[in-house]
């Protein structure tokens, strides 16, 4: 969490500081080269599914349930900015936010009230669970001017992820005599938060219509391994981020 906050502060402070430098130097090329901002709408490809499980005691026997969370593709929002250290080398900070539903399936094995080893199998799909990934990406950027208007950039660096995920803690079911079957009735869910350090790497191609304004497209891979709290005990391995591709405004000052 501290990493994320520090990076965000750095990003906010970077723009006015650069502007002050531009004003004081009064050189025509410097403002354009020194500061840049990208505002992108991106599409994040689906992440890796992850599975959680929990055991419990019911009817004098161990039962269990497992949940499989699908992290689907969806839109994200990405803002980044930075400052050129040299004509071709820059540093920057990006913030991305991805929020999407996570279709979840549950399978459970519930012990029979009358007999050992005759578990009833339950299964169902759960809607309404969401995942939110907020990430701060610190980037070293190599800027390659292709022409006077066209600029390519490759970048990479560490990312700080904050993942908020709805998880299933428990479930209820309906049953009636002779109890040979049971049906999922409802689930009990909660939101858990976890932070993780990851990475980002990508490329950007921008076309500037004017010295300050352009459009660009970006492709980046962001990711981190997150130890999500389990509904049972311990944690489960999950991943955050994935391939992001999008386009947006390019600003230079």
């Amino acid at each position: 969490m501290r990493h994320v906050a520090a990076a965000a502060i750095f990003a906010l402070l970077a723009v006015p500081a650069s502007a002050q430098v531009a004003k004081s130097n009064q050189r025509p090329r410097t403002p354009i080269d020194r500061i840049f901002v990208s505002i992108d709408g991106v599409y994040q490809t689906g992440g890796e599914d992850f599975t959680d499980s929990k055991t419990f005691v019911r009817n004098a026997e161990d039962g269990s349930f497992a949940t499989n969370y699908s992290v689907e593709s969806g839109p994200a929002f990405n803002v980044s900015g930075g400052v050129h250290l040299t004509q071709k080398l820059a540093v920057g900070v990006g913030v991305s936010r991805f929020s999407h539903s996570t279709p979840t399936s549950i399978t459970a094995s519930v012990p029979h009230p009358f007999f050992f080893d005759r578990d009833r199998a339950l299964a169902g799909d759960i809607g309404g669970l969401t995942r939110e990934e907020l990430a701060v990406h610190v980037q070293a950027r190599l800027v390659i001017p292709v022409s006077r208007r066209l600029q390519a950039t490759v970048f990479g660096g560490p990312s700080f992820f904050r993942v908020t995920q709805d998880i299933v803690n428990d479930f209820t079911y309906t049953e009636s005599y002779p109890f040979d079957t049971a049906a999922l009735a409802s689930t009990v869910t909660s939101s858990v938060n976890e932070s993780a350090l990851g990475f980002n790497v990508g490329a950007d191609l921008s076309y500037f219509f004017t010295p300050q304004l352009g459009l660009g497209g970006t492709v980046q891979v962001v990711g981190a391994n997150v130890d999500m709290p389990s509904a049972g005990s311990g944690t489960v391995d999950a991943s955050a981020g994935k391939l992001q591709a999008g386009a947006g405004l390019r600003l230079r000052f």
Partner: protein
Amino acid sequence: MRRMTAVVAVIAATLAVSLVKGRAQQPSSVQISATTGNELRSWDGWVTQALRTGELRAMRVDRDPLLPAREIERLQQYHNGVPIWGAQIVRDSANGVAQSIFGQVSPTLTIGTVPAMQADAISARFAALAGADGKVLRAPSLTILRLASGEYRLAYNAVVANKGVFRVFLDAQTGSELVRYSEIQTQSAVGTGHGTIGDTKKMSVSKQGSVYVADDLMRPPLLRTYDMRGDPWHAYLVHDFGFPLFTSDLASDTDNDWTDSAAVDAHAYIGWTYDYYFKRFGRRGLDDHDRPVIALINPVLQKDAAVMFAEWSDYIVNASWCGVCGPAGVGVMLFGNGIPPQYTLGGQTVTNFAASLDIVAHELTHGVTNSSSNLTYQNESGALNEAFSDIMGTSVEFYHQPFGAGIGQADYLLGEDTFRSPAGALNGTRSLINPAAFGQPDHYSRYVVDPFDYGGVHTNSGIPNHAFFLAIEGGVNRTSGLAVQGVGRPNREQIEKIFYRAFVYLLPSDATFSIARAATIQAARDLYGAGSAAERAVTQAWTAVGVF
């Protein structure tokens, strides 16, 4: 309408003649097994006419969940308004058309129906039979009784408890005792076993305060197991005299990890048996209306068995069902605890009777019979009553336990988890595979009349038992040498359903083996079609055991 009346009149007249003829040849009663053609139509007409005249009156109408469109009427025959004991007709109809009629009716009677003994006098006579220590459990009622000789008598009958629970018939003219038979349908105790099998079962119980009690709240009926805690007098008073049972009498455990094997076995296995009837046949318990199921355990503790054996052997080496016993005549099962392992009985050790799933199911099935066909507990109908309990006991075992010859496995032996023999000898008390192994006949030609066992109800049950086995597994009857092509073990459900339908719905209370044959064949046709493998197997099986 007039033509119809005329037809009925002709049929009735024809039947009356045949009945009279029947009486001349077989004066006691007329046996009906009508399943096809003119015979069925004739009897159907007669039944309809008899219902109009009041000679037959409806006792109840059942619907078999296996054939829910069918309507099964159980009809009682009357003579001048007095019921004739055991004279019943069972008519199975589909959309108002008779499919089969079974029965045992009396020919036209001339016996008077005005008793010389007045109600007060007959009550006093029954009270005298009960004695100071006994009790009359059911008020006397007037009936016409057919004696073994074929003669009919006007009689009063009542249930009397005194060192047993008996239905007693007194001559309504003289007050002399005519017939008595036990209302306690017992699992006969022959042999011994090695104790409860050491398995772990789930108990459906309830929590009361800090204690768990054997009161199954998950199954539909009231299903309770009461612990007599080694007090046979308590058991006796509850069982025979209807003394009340209290919550404190329920079998209990403090941590819900039950260690009293008698309580565990009885309580769990009763539940398993209820489950079998529900899942296999759609039946809801003893009477199909979730009649309460009450079990008494630990009437005599095994450690006290040697000392108490002479006086309380029925509470030690026996299990029983009594449909009119217990508080308010609710009906109770009782399971003895057997004898200490250092003792043997008939060369076998005998442990807790509830340790055998088939024994528990056997006793519960007596309750089913009691609430359905109510097969009279003597002679052939009594043997059919016993056989049906054995058959269902075995079937429950096969439903819940894996097939095999070991402890806790399904086989065709009765009580093998209670009665244990030395190595090399058969466990159990009866065998459906080879009834002769336990002294039972396997063929009608070997039918035994045993006056000490109500005509041999525990002996002759071997014949229908063996027919049931042959219909499933096939094989050769040892006496007749006739081979049977069974339906095979994977299809055993067919034979179970056939016997269930026949014994529960189609048999009259005084059924004979011959009627049972016809009824099971008819049930096979009803359920699986004429000419089906099941019908063939059932027909061959009865033929192989000499029942036609």
